């Protein structure tokens, strides 16, 4: 027996014998139960007492698996018995907890065959709580320690444990919900498995109909989504390329401004762009009224539907394409282009035969990202969709609409998932192998040649109006919050800000009387809690991917990046399907929001971690190991301090994304836990644009402030670190070229 096993054994018993086994209705962070009948009340009793006092006899065998590790006393770690006992306890415990959780639910037996076999059950059980959580964690780490003791990864307990933890979390919170969707899609309306129900729902005209080609009916949502995504992908890629070329290969003056504009969409909830477009082009929009007053063009609703969504998504996602392409365009080694020029190619030929082909993988990547983002976007179609049905909103209406058809939602989610996963797969398969950049690391000097003249004008002609439009949109957003009623009464007012964010002093001190405070506070707390957790799991995963070799690493990486390709609406539906019933009952809590954000934003943390960790020389870790530090200490004392900028980046990004997210959130909010974005969407649906815009501007300001603060802090640190590093880094770089 060693200290780690003893620690987890203690944790396991703490969970089984002391903490409440089932979830507490009042919430994860509420501890009233301590004074309210604990430990004997059957709602709050720990597992042991549930089994003994409350006749939940099926919990008793868990103690057996928790007793097993006691047999390790006096055994050495390299004794095969040690590993095997831990494996038995870990696998057995996990399997048993899972099995009893899935077979016994709120109504007793979950499966009728079991009821016939064992007779009806007097007791029932609810979602697992603190106790079950700790006990399962203990079993998980028994299992990983068993694997480590058998010699995996040099017997490194910390690394095997981390891998086990990440796999377990990804399994529970990404794979399990997605599987639930699959299962729901196979059920009929009565909740019984019936594959033909799937076929009927899948081949619905509303999904695959092609009526729009021949007659005046609308096409199916799948075709609509596909058409939209393809055109948005193509559009954002073209525009993104234009911007990237302007910044790198022309004499354009305001390059800084363009880069600054690209930050905006990151801190803008996507549907806010849609709102601004309504303010411009809607029936009472400025441009519409201007056109009807001056030119006599009648105000119409043309913006609602494909044109509006396309337009809004183009504005929202072009910066993503730009960020991908600027890396690629800058990454092309100038010496390639210079070489072409010394070989007598003129500027146009150089661009056409060298630069453009080298950008091709980047273009494909930008297209696929635009495609995935467009498919997944929920806010803009909801605000601007009109009669143009797309998959992401159809899923939402299937769940919340009058029909409340979970099966249909599941089928739609599967179709959507099919599209995005195919794109994601194509991106990884096809682009993963190609080298994006030609940076050699050998101090490439030289500058990129300027574009040929005519191309320069073409690029200006595309990029500049677009930049102007973006600026106008953001001006509208700021301005829109200060006018009485857009389109009708343009007198300035603070009414919307007051109704959202007023504070008055009453008897008990300050009263948060504004209607937005509730959701604003929840949003800040949930985003604040989920950000550090996201960063932590992302960085741990990055560490495993960059620094460790283990079997199944490719699958592991695919699993952790998978949630990037799962649209928010799909995650939302799947969480509702998976976590509404025991054994994991989370809907209606704040925890489910936190978890949702962690796993939605995890790929961001992983990528930030991978990027900066691959720049740390691996010999730093190895030096620490040979000096006697364990891998846990190495991570804590050497890697983490050196990764501070990446940590901060991951923190900020996940914080911001938790604030702007809407698509998954809208399924998961509840009366107690309403989020800012879902509140705003609610206002929009009530045509309360003023308040919605005012609230959005406040959110943007808050995030801008957060980002600038952090950038200030990190920026300074980075400069300091660069000088610290220079002397150490250089020899490493030299040795690689030597």
């Amino acid at each position, binding site marked *: 027996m060693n200290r780690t096993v003893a620690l987890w054994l203690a944790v396991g018993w703490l969970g089984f014998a002391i903490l409440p086994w089932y979830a507490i209705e009042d919430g994860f962070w509420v501890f009233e139960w301590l004074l309210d009948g604990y430990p004997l009340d059957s709602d709050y009793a720990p597992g042991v007492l549930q089994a003994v006092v409350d006749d939940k006899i099926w919990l008793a065998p868990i103690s057996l698996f928790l007793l097993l590790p006691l047999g390790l006393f006096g055994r050495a770690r*390299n004794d095969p018995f040690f590993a095997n006992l831990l494996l038995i306890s870990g696998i057995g415990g996990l399997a048993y907890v899972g099995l009893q959780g899935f077979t016994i639910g709120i109504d007793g037996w979950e499966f009728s065959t079991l009821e016939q076999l064992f007779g009806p059950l007097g007791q029932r059980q609810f979602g697992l709580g603190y106790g079950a959580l700790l006990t399962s964690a203990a079993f998980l780490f028994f299992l990983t320690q068993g694997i480590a003791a058998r*010699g995996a990864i*040099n*017997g*490194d307990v910390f690394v095997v444990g981390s891998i086990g933890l990440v796999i377990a979390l990804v399994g529970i919170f990404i794979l399990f919900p997605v599987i639930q969707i699959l299962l729901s899609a196979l059920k009929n309306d009565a909740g019984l498995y019936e594959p033909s129900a799937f076929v009927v729902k899948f081949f619905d005209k509303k999904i695959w109909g092609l009526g729009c080609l021949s007659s005046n009916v609308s096409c199916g949502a799948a075709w609509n989504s596909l058409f939209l995504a393809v055109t948005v992908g193509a559009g954002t890629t073209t525009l993104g390329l234009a911007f990237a070329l302007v910044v790198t290969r022309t004499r354009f003056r305001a390059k800084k401004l363009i880069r600054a504009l690209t930050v905006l969409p990151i801190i803008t909830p996507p549907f806010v762009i849609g709102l601004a477009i309504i303010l411009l082009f809607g029936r009472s929009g400025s441009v519409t009224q201007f056109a009807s007053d001056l030119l006599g063009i009648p105000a119409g609703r043309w913006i609602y539907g494909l044109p509006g969504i396309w337009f809004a998504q183009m504005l929202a996602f072009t910066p993503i394409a730009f960020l991908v392409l600027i890396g690629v365009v800058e990454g092309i080694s100038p010496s390639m282009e210079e070489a072409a020029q010394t070989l007598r190619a003129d500027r146009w030929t150089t661009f056409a035969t060298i630069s453009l082909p080298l950008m091709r993988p980047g273009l494909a990547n930008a297209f696929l990202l635009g495609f995935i983002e467009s498919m997944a976007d929920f806010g803009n179609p909801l605000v601007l969709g009109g009669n143009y049905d797309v998959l992401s909103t159809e899923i939402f209406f299937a769940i919340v609409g009058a029909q409340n058809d979970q099966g249909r939602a599941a089928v739609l989610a599967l179709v959507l998932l099919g599209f995005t996963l195919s794109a994601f797969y194509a991106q990884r398969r096809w682009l993963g192998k190609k080298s994006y950049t030609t940076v050699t690391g050998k101090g490439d000097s030289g500058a990129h040649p300027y574009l040929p003249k005519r191309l320069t004008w073409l690029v200006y002609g595309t990029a500049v109006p677009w930049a102007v439009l973006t600026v106008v949109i953001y001006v509208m957003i700021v301005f829109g919050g200060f006018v009485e009623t857009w389109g009708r009464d343009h007198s300035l007012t603070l009414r919307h800000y007051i109704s959202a964010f007023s504070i008055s002093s009453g008897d008990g001190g300050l009263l948060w009387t504004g209607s937005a405070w509730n959701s604003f506070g929840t949003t800040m707390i949930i985003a604040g809690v989920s950000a550090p957790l996201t960063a932590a799991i992302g960085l741990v995963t990055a560490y495993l991917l960059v620094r460790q070799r283990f079997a199944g690493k490719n699958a592991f990486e695919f699993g952790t990046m998978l949630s990037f390709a799962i649209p928010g609406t799909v995650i939302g539906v799947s969480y509702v399907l998976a976590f509404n019933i025991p054994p994991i009952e989370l809907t209606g809590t704040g925890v489910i929001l936190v978890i949702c954000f962690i796993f939605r934003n995890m790929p961001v943390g992983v990528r930030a971690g991978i990027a900066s960790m691959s720049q740390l*020389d691996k*010999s*730093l870790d*190895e*030096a*620490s*190991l*040979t*000096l*006697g*530090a*364990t*891998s846990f*200490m190495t991570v804590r*004392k*050497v890697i983490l*301090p*050196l990764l501070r900028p990446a940590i901060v980046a991951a923190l900020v990004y996940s914080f911001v994304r938790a604030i702007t997210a809407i698509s998954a959130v809208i399924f998961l909010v509840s009366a107690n836990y309403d989020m800012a974005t879902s509140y705003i969407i609610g206002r929009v649906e009530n045509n309360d644009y003023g308040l919605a815009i005012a609230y959005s501007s406040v959110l943007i300001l808050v995030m801008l402030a957060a980002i600038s603060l952090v950038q200030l802090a990190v920026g300074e640190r980075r400069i300091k*670190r660069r*000088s*610290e*590093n*220079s*002397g*150490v*880094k250089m*020899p*490493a770089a*030299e*040795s690689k070229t*030597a």
Partner: protein
Amino acid sequence: MKIASKAASVSFDAVTKAFGAVVAVDQVSFRVEAGSLVTLLGPSGCGKTTTLRMIAGLEMASNGRILIGDQDVTSLPATDRDVSMVFQSYALFPHMTVLENVSYGLRVSGMAKSEVGGRAEDGLALVGLKGYGDRLPSELSGGQQQRVAVARALVLEPQVLLFDEPLSNLDAKLRRRVREEIREIQQNLGLTSVYVTHDQEEALAVSDRIIVMNQARIAQEGSPRELYDEPADLFVADFIGDANLVDAEILAVDGPDAEVTIGGIELKLPARGMERGPARIAIRPQAIGLAVQDSGDGLRGVVRKATYLGSHIEYSVETPIGELFVIDGGVVQPIPRESDVSVRLSHQGVTLIRS
């Protein structure tokens, strides 16, 4: 406090390491005696670093046994081995001061705080960096960084100290000085050290024994002198100290001596257990004397190239037995190109080699 040594021997017993299909180290066996410095020498990619990393526990052997002292460490991870390593890139932690770097190993292995500082200072003093403790690694020159890396490894009083091309990031002058310092510390403390390099001169200078590796196997093991004077094969002869490899024929073997003919000249060389028949000989460039005067019969040649290098001149001489590379100390009277010369072989530096 003083830095002492707990030197232990290292043994490899038929150790193999494969990365997928690539066999980086193939059935290697050797023993490093406690307190000696052994160099792993060989061309890039021959498996030196992999061998060293297996001693450290940074790679696990695919096959075979590794012993440190009497303990079998084959499956022991790096953290649990009493081995320190000086990395090629030094791997100094950039966010810690010099003193923090040197005391890192002591701290993580749980030594009392009061003791850590003193021991680390001792370590710094040993490498001549007293008073540099508060600097960051980036505020030191390359040579000083190198010595911090050595101090950091030394203070743990490891059973074995490993060096992976520790001098490759230093300029030529500094390289000579630092290698002498390393050797001095190693001898004073009686440390067991394994030293990796691809530079034969460095290996000859610092080692008690040298293990020459080639293509994942050991080509020859011996003292510097043995390797230079009696290379086991063509590879070793050529890799250590350059050699002209010439076809020859053993005419007769008489006890320890062999009669050998090369292109018409006859020589008496140590037989090294070889039999009659075709063979090769390795001729060190310094073992060839050139003379412009006509000295009758013997080997003759034409100087094709002459390169003046300050302390000596390198010639390339065309002869009936092939092109010979010659190093000649006589810089005062260089031989002009295209001269006819007579070629003499001294007894030192001419060795029979199995072909």
